[in-house]
Every structure is written in structure tokens, then in C-alpha cells.
């Protein structure tokens, strides 16, 4: 039986994975060696996030549920650190909670990177890190009702009754806003169920990896979230707003070139598909 000869179209429809892998790595390395530094486009959800964060009154309290670690940390670390910097610069007090155990170290890293001393923010007075509190949705609901009933010490083991900020902050009544950096596509549901459903007057500001935006967008349009930062592009908008582009802005540079192999492959795939279809019709 004779082997069917591969046409050009067949070859174009069967590009090997190794070729793509090499192209992908080359296009990822180029912006590292030669940054483009182009301005980052600000989408509507990020613009809303920036607009609403400015509405938080100075001197008020905000609870920050941080869930992100692992694969998504690089996506939101720019937004996390720039949000903290902004809140501290406006003398807004922050209570930080890690919803998953993975977020414990990233919280500490992010707080150190944001450098509270630069803004005169004192631990225990202007911000508190309660560390990891287990329970996920149960915890989110419990914290809404009473933080002191849920956990008794902060991440360093200091009793909450000995922390000045925690003497004045305990439940939803004491917070002007809630900020969440959530880790997966369904994680924002619990904040809608446990905070928005009972207290829609407390604005929610979200940040997440760009892959989770598909669920966040319908909540943003519905008003459950006032705004959100999606991935490094969104987080770069926040960095740009505070005038300190850094962690996120660097990553958006990679998106310029790293997307090219994929675009090219999609175009080639379509051209080859139609080419083969036409050539079959002709023969």
C-alpha cells in the first residue's frame, strides 16, 4: 500500500510542538533582553477599580482577603503591592487575611515589598496581618460577623485584644470596603454570597489573574464588584495610578511578543484549513 504523500497544506496543519516551544521561549526572552516599555492600556474594569479606591475615606478601615499564591501570584503581585501602598498613603487602615495557607508567605512578601515604613504605617495601628484563617467560605462568613470570634491572635501570635487596630475593628460594621485578590474562577462567588448578598452597601474591589476574569466580569456589570484588576495589565493600571510602575508593568511587556507565535499559528492553521479544502474541491 503506497504511503499518501503529504501536501504543503498537510504540513502546515501539522506543525510540531517543539517548533512552537522554541518560538515561544525565544519571544519570551526578547523583551527581557530588550524591554519595549510601551504604555499599558487601561480597560474599563481597572479604571473603575482606580475610581472606587479613591472613594474610600482616609482614616477608615478596609479588610483585604488575599487568596493568591502559586501560579497566579505573578499576575497580581503588582496590584497587591500598589494597592497597599495607596491605602497606606491615604492613612486607610488595612486588616489582611490569607484565605488559603498558600497565601500566608505571599502576604508577608507583598507587605515587605510595599514597605509600610515609607508611608509611616505602623503594624498594629495602621495594618494588621491576621495570617491564614481556615474555612474558606465559612471563614469569610464568620469574619463578616465577628473577627474576634473567629480568630484570637494575629500571624505573629499577638492576642487581638493587645492590638490597637483590632480593638476598633471587628465586623462588617467597621469596614468601608472589602478588597479581595482571589485565586480561582469561582472563588469570588463566596464574597458575593456572604458579603454582597447581606451588605451590598459595602463596596467590593477585586483583583485576580486574567484567566478568572470570565466570572468576574458578570459580577462587575451587575454591580457586585465596583471594579477589578485583571492580571498584570489591570495591576499595571493601579501601579501607573500611584506613579510607581514596577512588578506588573514589566510583565505586560512580555505580552507584546509572546502572543505572536500563537497569532501566527492560528492564522497559518486557518489558511492551511481553507487551502486544503479548496484543493480538495479542485481535485
Amino acid at each position, binding site marked *: 500500500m503506497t504511503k499518501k504523500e503529504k501536501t504543503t497544506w498537510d504540513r502546515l496543519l501539522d506543525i510540531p510542538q517543539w517548533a512552537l516551544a522554541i518560538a515561544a521561549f525565544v519571544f*519570551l526572552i526578547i523583551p527581557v533582553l530588550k524591554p519595549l516599555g510601551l504604555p499599558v492600556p487601561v480597560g474599563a474594569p481597572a479604571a473603575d477599580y482606580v475610581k472606587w479606591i479613591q472613594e474610600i475615606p482616609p482614616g477608615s478601615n478596609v479588610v483585604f482577603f488575599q487568596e493568591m499564591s502559586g501560579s497566579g501570584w505573578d499576575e497580581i503581585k503588582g496590584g497587591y503591592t500598589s494597592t497597599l501602598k495607596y491605602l497606606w498613603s491615604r492613612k486607610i487602615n488595612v486588616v489582611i487575611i490569607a484565605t488559603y495557607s498558600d497565601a500566608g508567605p505571599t502576604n508577608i512578601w507583598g507587605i515587605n515589598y510595599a514597605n509600610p515604613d515609607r508611608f509611616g504605617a505602623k503594624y498594629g495601628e495602621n495594618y494588621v496581618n491576621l495570617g491564614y484563617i481556615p474555612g474558606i467560605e465559612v471563614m469569610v462568613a464568620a469574619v463578616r460577623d465577628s473577627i474576634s470570634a473567629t480568630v484570637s491572635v494575629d500571624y505573629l501570635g499577638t492576642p487581638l485584644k493587645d492590638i490597637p487596630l483590632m480593638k476598633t475593628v471587628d465586623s462588617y460594621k467597621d469596614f468601608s470596603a472589602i478588597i479581595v485578590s482571589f485565586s480561582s474562577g469561582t472563588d469570588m462567588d463566596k464574597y*458575593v454570597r456572604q458579603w454582597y448578598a447581606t451588605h451590598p452597601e459595602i463596596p467590593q474591589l477585586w483583583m485576580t489573574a*486574567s484567566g478568572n476574569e470570565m466570572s468576574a466580569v458578570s459580577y462587575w456589570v451587575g454591580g457586585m464588584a465596583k471594579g477589578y484588576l485583571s492580571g498584570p495589565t489591570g495591576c499595571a493600571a493601579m501601579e501607573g495610578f500611584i506613579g510607581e510602575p514596577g512588578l506588573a508593568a514589566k510583565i505586560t511587556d512580555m505580552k507584546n511578543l509572546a502572543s505572536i507565535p500563537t497569532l501566527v499559528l492560528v492564522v497559518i492553521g486557518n489558511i492551511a484549513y481553507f487551502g486544503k479544502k479548496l484543493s480538495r474541491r479542485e481535485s
Partner: protein
Amino acid sequence: MADPVTIFWLGWSSLIAVGIMTLVWRENPYYRLVEHLIIGAGCAHMLMYGLLAVSTTGITPILAGRTLLIIPLILAILTFGRLTPWGWISRYPVALLTAIGIGILIGGALEGQIVGQVRSIGDAIYTAKDPFTTASATLAGIASIAAIIYFIYTKEHKGVLGGFARFGRIILMAGLGISWGMEFGWFITALGTWTENVVNFIRALMGIP
């Protein structure tokens, strides 16, 4: 030249990242070594944070006078019954946890997720300020209904219903394409950040700033 500690961690994280990247070629001993290293590290991390949380949420409040919390602590210990021949005793704490989860979920889901989402269809049209936005919001409303109709399996998709279902499917496919675009950006960030790390390590070794 960067300090030795920075270079060490740069090198260590690069070794880990490269080990994972070798999976593109195929599963190999280097990749498996890194994989198992992470499994052990992650497991230890979860255990330590878990035990710390037991102390902060359970033991410390009990010692401070909240003696009623002894009951959930005992129930929680029963979870380890799964490791014994009397695995059924772990059903009690799981049942309580399930009950709490159900109790707090239904109300919030009804208000926030169902009523809120349906209300937002009308809100978007009602609050639109110009004809283009009104038309777009109306299209989005029709698209939402069509996409929901696509998931009706109790009636055959024929005629008008079939037309709406087809439109709904097209909207869902477009949404799928957009969500792929979103995920793709995430992949670039994840791989790009650690590829950059590897490049920076090579530069540090070669003394290039």
C-alpha cells in the same frame, strides 16, 4: 555583581523552573525530582499552617474561656477516623461542615448570584445613557436569555427555540474564545516571569548587569 545569597536563590529558583520546563520534551527524572520536591514542600507547608490555625482558632480561645469550642475540636479530631477501621466516625464532622456550608450558601446564592444576575440584565438596559449603549445592553440581554435557552434539554431545539439556542451557542463560543484569551495572558505571565528569572541568573553568572 549581586550578593551571593541573591544569586543562590536566583539559581535555585531557576533550577526548579527549568526542571518543570523539561516537561515540554517529556516526563523525565529531572522533572519528577522537582515535582516530588514540591509535593513534600507543599505538604509540610499545609501541615504547619494547619497546626498553627488549630492553635489560633481552637486551642487559644478554649484556654481563654470559650470552653464550648471543645465540642468542635473533638468532632474535628474524629475526621482522622478515616485513617482507622472505624472510618464512619468521620461522617459526623463532615456532616456538620456540610450543614454549615449549605446553610450559609443558599440565601447568598439566591440573592447575589441569581436575583442579582437577572436584575443586572434589566439594569444595564435601563441605565444606558446613549442609543449605542442601549442597543448593546439589549443585545447582551437577548444573548443572556439565548444562552440560558441553549441549556434547556427537555425540549427539542427546533423552530424559534432552535434559533435562540443556536444564537446562545454562538455567544457561548465567543465567550469561550474570550476566556481562552484571558487564560492565555495568564500562561504568558507565569512562564515569562520564570523564563526571565533563568535569563537573569545566566546574566548574573556571566557578570552582565
